[in-house]
């Protein structure tokens, strides 16, 4: 299968290792992976700010950059949700471009759900000696139904055990521009999230979205907690030795 990686702007800027981990996992699943050069961002900041014109312009650029691949895969439920769910809504009243949006939506996937639901991967060959807890990022969970998939793959990581937090499905307060526009509310939400994580026995928190992870790791660091934060793909690809936890010194 010929797969295009949608790197996502946050992975590109903050944590390229997640991109390489995604490629490794996809190649292990038998995919041929390419990274189209014409990509930047999915356009969510514009879309969620009510700027339809820019959101559409960026979406059209995504259509072009990702034309012709069997599948488009992003290591983020939020960006994958944009491609799968929101582009067709964005072009709902545009008969010229709607078919392109729908066509892209049908072949766009979040990484972990693609590995399990499409490639039928049942386990990975990684090892990580940790007790982890998993944060279900909102878009992945509620727009794409991602819940069981990461847990299934994590169960195959030797040495790893999962300690569920009661509030795993509650938003961490990132919300893109929300955390800048309403910092006090965001702070309250991420403080609650951190407390929920700290109350488990986990020594690491994993998630499938870098936005949430930057927020959660940033809060845990500020509080001086010794809990590491990582993208789930790094763990599944066995690449934890190659990069320090999010927010930790190199």
């Amino acid at each position, binding site marked *: 299968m010929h797969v295009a990686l949608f*790197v996502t*702007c946050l*992975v*590109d*800027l*903050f944590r*390229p290792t997640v991109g*390489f981990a995604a490629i490794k996992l996809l190649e292990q699943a038998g995919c041929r992976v390419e*990274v189209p*050069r*014409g*990509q*930047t*961002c999915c*356009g969510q*900041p*514009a*879309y*969620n*700010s*009510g*700027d339809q014109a*820019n959101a559409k*312009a*960026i979406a059209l*650029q995504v259509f072009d950059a990702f034309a012709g691949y069997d599948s488009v895969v992003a290591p983020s439920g939020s960006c994958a949700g944009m491609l799968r769910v929101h582009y067709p809504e964005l072009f709902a009243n545009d008969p010229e471009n709607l078919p392109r949006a729908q066509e892209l939506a049908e072949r766009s996937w979040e990484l972990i759900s693609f590995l399990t639901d499409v490639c039928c991967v049942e386990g990975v060959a990684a090892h990580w000696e940790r007790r982890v807890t998993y944060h279900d990022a*909102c*878009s992945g969970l*509620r*727009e794409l139904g991602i819940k069981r998939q990461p847990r299934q793959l994590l169960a195959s990581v030797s040495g790893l055990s999962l300690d569920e937090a009661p509030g795993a499905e*509650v*938003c961490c*307060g*990132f*919300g*893109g521009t*929300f*955390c*800048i*526009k309403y*910092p*006090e*509310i965001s702070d*309250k*939400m*991420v403080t*609650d999230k951190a407390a929920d994580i700290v109350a488990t026995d986990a020594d690491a928190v994993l998630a499938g979205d870098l936005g949430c992870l930057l*927020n959660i*790791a*940033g*809060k845990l*660091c*500020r509080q001086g907690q010794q809990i590491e934060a990582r993208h789930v793909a790094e763990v599944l690809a066995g690449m934890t030795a190659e*990069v*320090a936890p*999010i*927010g*930790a*010194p*190199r």
Partner: protein
Amino acid sequence: MLATSRNFTAAAQAGLANDNLQRALGLARTGFPLRRRLAVERLPEFEALREAGRAIKDHTLQYLDFYIEFYESQVVASGGKVHWARTPAEACAAVLQICRSVGAKIVTKGKSMVAEEIGLNDFLEANGITPVETDLGEYIIQLRHEPPSHIIAPAIHLVKEQVAETFRAEHRSLDAGRPLIEPRQMCDEARAMLRPRFLAADVGITGANFLVAETGSSIVVTNEGNGDLTQVLPRVHIVVTSIEKVVPTFEDAATLLRLLARSATGQEFSTYTTISTGPRREADLDGPEEYHVVLLDNGRSGMIGTDFQDMLRCIRCSACMSHCPVYAAVGGHAYGWVYPGPMGAVLTPGLIGIEEAGHLPNASTFCGRCESVCPVKIPLPKMMRHWREREHAKKLSPTVYRKGLSVWAWVARRPALYHALAGTAARALGWAGQGHGRFRALPLAAGWTTVRDMPSPEGRSFHSLWAQYKKRGSAR
């Protein structure tokens, strides 16, 4: 009710700093969602019921003109009267005119959010009529001169010690030695005060959860039975409600009632479901002599046919706010008008204007929990986004924010430039942050770093590493 939604940010900060409020919200945060989940788990067809509920409301809204007029004709046929009100002022005037016609001094009230919307209590008081709230929560906040903070639990922002204090301050007959510690004791105290007023009232005002077109009936659900006493004891019953509450048949209302109680409180059915059809008939043992319905529009009909029509499906169950992490952080008063939480974030701008209520649809992470629990599947985040689109088009959002966004978008539409800038930024930030792995403060990112650290980038952008890998066969 006077709106203060413009002050959302300051009110939210005040809410976050209010210890009693945070204690009260902490209890509410887990209670309602847990009870709803258990109720839903006990009903395997709940999802199918949601779909049915949505279909009933969509159908009714599509033919609202027909159903609402049919409803009126049935109210008239059963001996009642409908008063159409385009605005809050018209609705208040209609209520006052009815009260005056029977020389009313005391009016008992069941909980009605539409009555809050039109500011009925203040209006009646200004006109020499004493309104007495009979729902326990409403009664408490009436004593405290506060607006409700939740559409089904109006006093949820209070802890029980505050309620006891309020009773001690306001109930002059209250024996100082009487304990007010347990909710039951406070309930008994309120009951003792309310009983004589039920009997003294000339007019009883309730809201309506549903209006049934086929029979001209109104349906009210309560858990305290105060709705019954309010509408059966006085000589006159006035239903203060709004046009989108109408449904075609009892069968439809029954479907929605099953959704309502489970979504609201996790009950299979509310304790009291009271159906009123016209005034007392000859063979009836009790009931009012007059039955009036004041039917408010206040901007709702203007939402039909727009991006916001789906909002009129709302059955006011409150599940969206009970599951909302933003509501749970700041409480209902921050929203600054009658309807808080996600449903308020969509409805309020529709009724009082996006200029006044612009913060509400912005103060959301789009986490989607509201939509996932809404019994009539209202796409709340999507409609909040539509409000943001209106704001953006009208240039109502802050200028710096719009400027920043357009610069970012301009760059994002030029991949070569974007990659060059991202590569440089990753290097610069990665270099600056390598020692600690994070920043405690960053220029231009104070909104982020005042409350949390900013993890440092690894040091190279993915695309620059990938280009290198493609050229040399190795990324690092």
